[in-house]
């Protein structure tokens, strides 16, 4: 409670009391205040969309919800959702497996770290969006280029986080494990891996949004299906409610995935009391 005490006048006592009451409520339940902000913003958008804004551009929330059944009953959109989902999941599985397989040795082994880490950082610093045409050139116009581009966006956060996680293992713990007779495999299994879990999950979260970004970028660039294609099609055919409803569902999916990983992260690192 380091707030600077408000210098309130006695004259506006009732309104300050009300504000103090609301402030206390929001301070105790910040989630409530967040929801209130979202509701106010949505209402403002709705009112503005019905009055001052051009509904052909920024359509109000009600028309977006109204458009949802129309958009999602479209067979093409359903197929597109599955196509994007398939690309995203495939890319993410590759990212996780390859990222762990590359990250663990780099983090565990001093020589591998010194020799490979500069290369990882070098590759990571390439602006990947500029080589998007190369991905299409080499992997074709179909799902292959989207998966490959998603992998190239998602893999670096995992590698970097695993390396950082492995290196943050306290040497004392490793020495203790070895002095109690743990083999190399046992000390990796019992000491290193539990330590790495929190940063692995942080990496998973970043990798998920990176993979999603890569897949969508590639879909927007050139595709014949997928969410990116439809969001472009709807915008090109002046149908903002449809675009917004597609984007809303996608954003909702992104947030759910994000929260899922975050909850899994909390579960997996329950034993870390100093890091809530």
């Amino acid at each position, binding site marked *: 409670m380091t707030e600077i005490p408000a210098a309130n006048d006695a004259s506006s006592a009732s309104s300050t009391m009300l504000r103090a009451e609301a402030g206390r409520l929001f301070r105790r339940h910040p989630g409530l205040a967040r929801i209130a902000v979202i509701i106010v913003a949505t209402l403002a958008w709705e009112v503005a969309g019905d009055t001052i804004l051009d509904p052909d551009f920024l359509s109000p929330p009600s028309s977006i919800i109204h458009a949802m059944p129309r958009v999602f009953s479209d067979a093409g959109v359903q197929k597109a959702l599955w196509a994007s989902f398939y690309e995203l999941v495939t890319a993410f599985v590759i990212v996780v497996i390859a990222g762990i397989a590359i990250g663990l040795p780099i983090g565990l082994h001093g020589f591998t770290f010194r020799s490979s880490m500069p290369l990882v950082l070098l590759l990571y610093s390439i602006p990947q*969006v500029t080589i998007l045409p190369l991905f299409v050139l080499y992997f074709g116009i179909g799902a292959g280029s989207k998966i490959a581009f998603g992998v190239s966006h998602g893999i670096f956060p995992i590698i970097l986080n695993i390396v950082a996680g492995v*290196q943050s293992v306290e040497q004392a713990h490793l020495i203790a494990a070895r002095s109690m007779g743990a083999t190399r495999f046992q000390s990796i299994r019992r000491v290193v891996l539990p330590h790495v879990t929190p940063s692995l999950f942080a990496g998973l979260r970043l990798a998920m949004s990176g993979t*999603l970004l890569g897949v969508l970028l590639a879909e927007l660039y050139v595709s014949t299906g997928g969410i990116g294609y439809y969001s472009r099609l709807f915008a090109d055919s002046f149908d903002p409610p449809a675009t917004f409803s597609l984007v809303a569902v996608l954003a909702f999916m992104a947030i759910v995935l994000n929260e899922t990983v975050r909850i899994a992260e909390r579960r997996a690192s329950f034993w870390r009391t100093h890091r809530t």
Partner: protein
Amino acid sequence: MNGIRGDWQARAIQVLFVAAILLLWYYVSTSGLVGVIFLPPLPRVIDKFLQIIQTGSLYYNLAVTAYELAMAFSIASILGLSIGYFVGRSRIAVVIFEPLLAGLFAVPIIVFLPLFILFFGIDMQSKIAFGATYAFFPIVLNAIGGISQIDPRLIIVARSMGANEGQLFRRVLLPAALPVIATGLRIGCIIGFLSILGSEMIAGLRGLGSRIVTLAEGMNTVEMFAYIIFVILMAALLNVTLTRMQARFSAPREQP
């Protein structure tokens, strides 16, 4: 992790790696194993690279992209820093707005790109708006983080010694938050650059990104590779410059 950047060994490994890639490229492309379209011969790409550096169309597209980046970065900085300052000063506002902004940043803004083009047209305005949107989030999140994580004792001490709001900002808040804010500005600038390139590639009339796409669509891979190399070099230059600038901002605090 930062330590290995300045390491000469790491530099040497990187240089050797690039040299090996170029050598491999040279042999594979001149051996005739792959088609010219897939991997153009390295000597021709280098010739083309030197040629485009001497002609005007590269600089025109570079100027377009640089202008878009400058505009987007200015907008994002002004909005991000001012919003970040006001949110960061109030503990309640941090608790309410920081997760909302972080949550919005988790949404793939790229799906909105068609709408940006719809609202702002296909030319530079949509790229500026898109780049500014992407650059805004790291800047505002770091500004909130930097301002709100200042030790409250510093503020109380300054106040009790009679500092007014302006002095407090200039002498306490700004120096204490600058390293974090500078990180946000650097990340925002890089993300802005990448998203401007991306939006130019997806739909654009001019700029480096749309030039690359035009060349790719024309199967003119020799010139496309030359342009890609140029853009990668530009991005590396931007990165190095920004990292240097950021190091200067945070130097007084990180001195051992």
